[in-house]
């Protein structure tokens, strides 16, 4: 049993990413969308924490949201995979449940 955790706020504004990472289970996935995509790009204060999260579960970022914010060509934090909307849907179907940390 594994959860697809979705975060959509920048952790520099809201605490939802921290709240999620504090309660993520081994084997769970994390998908960053909307404003949260800014920390999928390497070099932020969250890079280390996300890198270590990537060692116990898969990391995804929604490419169109990342691109919209000007990070299309920036290197991602180690372990991140970019997905398009189809990939988003496939992930939602693949995991046992989706937890959207609004």
């Amino acid at each position: 049993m594994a959860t697809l955790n979705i975060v959509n706020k920048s952790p520099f504004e809201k605490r939802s990413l921290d709240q999620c990472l504090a309660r993520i289970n081994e084997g769970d996935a994390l998908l960053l969308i909307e404003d949260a995509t800014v920390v999928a790009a390497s070099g932020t204060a969250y890079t280390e924490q996300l890198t270590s999260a990537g060692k116990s579960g898969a990391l995804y970022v929604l490419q169109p949201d990342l691109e919209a914010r000007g990070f299309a060509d920036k290197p991602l934090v180690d372990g991140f995979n970019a997905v398009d909307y189809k990939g988003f849907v496939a992930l939602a179907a693949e995991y046992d449940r989706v937890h959207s940390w609004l």
Partner: protein
Amino acid sequence: MEEEYSGGVEKKFLYVNRRVPHGTVYALESLETVLIGAAFDQDVSMLFIDDGVYQLKKEQNPDSIDFKNFAKAFRALEMYDVEKLFVEQESLSERGLTESDLLVDVEVISREQTKALIDQQDVVLSF
């Protein structure tokens, strides 16, 4: 949908509450969703973590800001067969609260138990 429910498909629903009440509409919306969901005979639990623990704080008086005191409705949940209320210990401690500050009986669980609880659900709705 109708048929599926009458066919007795019971799912485990977890409502995760993470916000202070009254400043936004999340807490009230969550409670209303729970009450509506309870009419469909599902297996419902509520979890209060982070700022969500403030929703259960005793002695709220939102009359002072002309808001409805919906915290009273938490005491009605039992009648709706919503009997599983979980509160995370770490979230209480961070905020200087203890179980005695809360207005209903709850089960206080650790962060590790919180993770396990989420992992047992069919549906997780976070507010």
